[in-house]
C-alpha cells in the first residue's frame, strides 16, 4: 500500500491535518494567525541553509523554525508587540533565504516545490518524518492541554494555579515550529498557515467546547486533504493549493449551513412564542 504514491500522499495529508488541527485552534484563540505565516516565511532560510550544508531540507527548516519560536518567545513582552517581532523576523529571514539560494551555484532548485509543496513526491522517509512529527506534536499538546487552555484564557488565572504562561507559550511555539517543518513537503511554505487556521475557523461555529473544536478541526482537515487529493488527481491541478481550496470551500459551506440552521431555529421559536 505504501508503494502507491497516492496512498502515501493521502497519509501525509492526514498526518499534517491531525497535527495542525489542535494547534490551529490555539492559533485562532490566541490571535496569532500571523505566526504560521511568519514561521513559514522563515522556513525559506532553512531551505537555503540545508541546500548550502547539503543536509535534508527537514532539518534545516526545523532548526530555523525552532530558532524563531524561541527568539519570539524570549523577546515578546519586552516592549515589542508579537506581530511586530514576527514581521521583522519573517520577512528578513525570507529575504536572506532567497538571497542565499541565489548564490548557490550549480544547484538548480525548484522554488515552486518549496512554496507550494509536492505532496505527490512524498517518500517513505518523508512519511515517517511527518507522522513522527505529528505524533510528537499531538503528545505535547495533549499533555499540556489544560495548562495551555488556561494560559490562553487568562495568564493571571494560570499563574494563580501555578502554571507559567510563558512556558506554555514556548511549548506551543515549539509545536508550531515542528508542524511547519513537517508540513513543508505537503502544502509548502505559502499554504501552511491555511492548514492551521481554516479548519479551526470552520470548526468554531460548530462546537461548544474547546475539545470539540479541536476534534472537528482535525476531521475537517483530514477530509479536505483526501478530497483535495482526489480532486487534484481528477483535474490534474496542483495538489497543495487544491487541498487548501477544499478547506476554504468547507469553511464557506459549513458556516453557511450553520447560519441557516440557526435562522430557522430562531424563526421556529419565534413562531412558537407567537402561539403561546
Amino acid at each position, binding site marked *: 500500500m505504501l508503494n502507491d504514491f497516492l496512498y502515501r500522499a493521502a497519509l501525509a495529508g492526514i498526518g499534517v491535518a491531525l497535527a495542525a488541527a489542535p494547534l490551529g485552534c490555539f492559533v485562532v484563540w*490566541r490571535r496569532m494567525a500571523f505566526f504560521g505565516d511568519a514561521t513559514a516565511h522563515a522556513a525559506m532560510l532553512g531551505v537555503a541553509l540545508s541546500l548550502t550544508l547539503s543536509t535534508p531540507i527537514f532539518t534545516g527548516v526545523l532548526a530555523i523554525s525552532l530558532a524563531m519560536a524561541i527568539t519570539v518567545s524570549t523577546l515578546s513582552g519586552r*516592549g515589542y508587540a508579537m506581530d511586530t517581532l514576527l514581521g521583522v523576523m519573517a520577512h528578513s529571514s525570507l529575504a536572506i533565504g532567497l538571497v542565499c539560494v541565489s548564490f548557490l551555484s550549480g544547484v538548480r532548485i525548484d522554488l515552486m516545490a518549496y512554496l507550494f509543496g509536492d505532496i505527490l513526491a512524498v517518500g517513505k522517509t518523508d512519511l515517517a518524518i511527518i507522522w513522527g512529527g505529528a505524533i510528537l506534536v499531538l503528545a505535547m499538546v495533549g499533555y499540556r492541554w489544560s495548562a495551555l487552555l488556561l494560559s490562553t484564557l487568562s495568564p493571571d*488565572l494560570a499563574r494563580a494555579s501555578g502554571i507559567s504562561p510563558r512556558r506554555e507559550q514556548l511549548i506551543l511555539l515549539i509545536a508550531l515550529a515542528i508542524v511547519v517543518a513537517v508540513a513543508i513537503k505537503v502544502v509548502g511554505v505559502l499554504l501552511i498557515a491555511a492548514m492551521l487556521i481554516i479548519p479551526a475557523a470552520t470548526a468554531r461555529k460548530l462546537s461548544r467546547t*474547546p475539545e470539540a473544536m479541536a476534534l472537528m478541526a482535525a476531521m475537517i482537515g483530514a477530509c479536505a486533504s483526501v478530497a483535495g487529493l482526489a480532486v487534484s488527481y481528477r483535474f490534474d491541478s496542483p495538489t497543495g493549493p487544491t487541498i487548501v481550496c477544499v478547506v476554504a470551500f468547507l469553511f464557506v459551506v459549513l458556516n453557511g449551513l450553520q447560519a441557516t440552521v440557526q435562522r430557522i431555529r430562531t424563526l421556529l421559536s419565534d413562531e412558537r412564542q407567537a402561539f403561546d
Partner: protein
Amino acid sequence: MLIETRNLSVRIGKTPILSDITMSIQRGEIVTIIGPNGSGKSTLMRTLIGALLPCQGEILRSPGLRIGYVPQRLHIDETLPLTVRRFLQLPRRRSREELQAVVSSAGAQQLLDHQLLALSGGQLQRVLLARALLDKPDLLLLDEPTQGLDRRGTSAFYHQIASIRQQYDCAVILVSHDLRVVMRRSERVICLNGHICCEGKPDTVGTSTAFRSLFGQDEDDDTLALYQHREHDRRHSMPEAV
C-alpha cells in the same frame, strides 16, 4: 498570620508602582484596599498571587496557603467556545460534588451549562468567584468585584462574600473604590496610593487626615478630592520620585 508583606516594592518595566508596602492578613478577617485609579491596587493583588515579582522586600506566606483569586476582568476571545462547567475544570478535573458546592456558594447554580461568552457581567463575576472557591482557599482575593453591578447587585454580592467567609473560614481581601458600601462590612481598611497612606478600622480611617486628603472630605465632591489628593502626594511623595 496568613500572608505578610515586608517593605514590598514593585515595578512594572521601569515604572515604580508600589513602594514600601508592609501589611499582614489574619485568618478570617475582611480587609478592604481602597485607593484612586492607578494607585497600584491590582498590582498588589497580582503580586500577592505571584504573577508579579517584587523588586524589593519580601512576601511571607503561611505554609500550604491556598489563595483564591478573582481577577478584575476576564477577556474571553469570541473564537473560544467554552462552557462554565469546562471553565471550572481548568486546569484539572473536578468531581460533580465539588462543582455543585462552589456554584451554590457563589450563586451560579443555573449557569453551569452556559457558554462563558454569553454571560452578563454579574453572572461572569459569580462564575469567577465559584472558580476561586474550588481549592477551598484560606485567602480570597477579589479585585473590584462590584464593578459594573448596580446598588442592589453590589449589596447582594457582599452578602454572598460574608456567608462565604463563614462557610470557608477564609480571609478576604477586597479591592474597591466603592467606599460607602465597603466600609460597613470590613474589619480593616488599607488606603493605598503607591504606598500605604493609612490603615485601620473603617470608622477611624474614615476620619483620619490622610484618608480625607486622599478622597476628599466629601466623597461626592470630585474636584475637592482631586485637589486634595495632589496636595497629599506632595507631602508623602514616594522615595523614587524624589
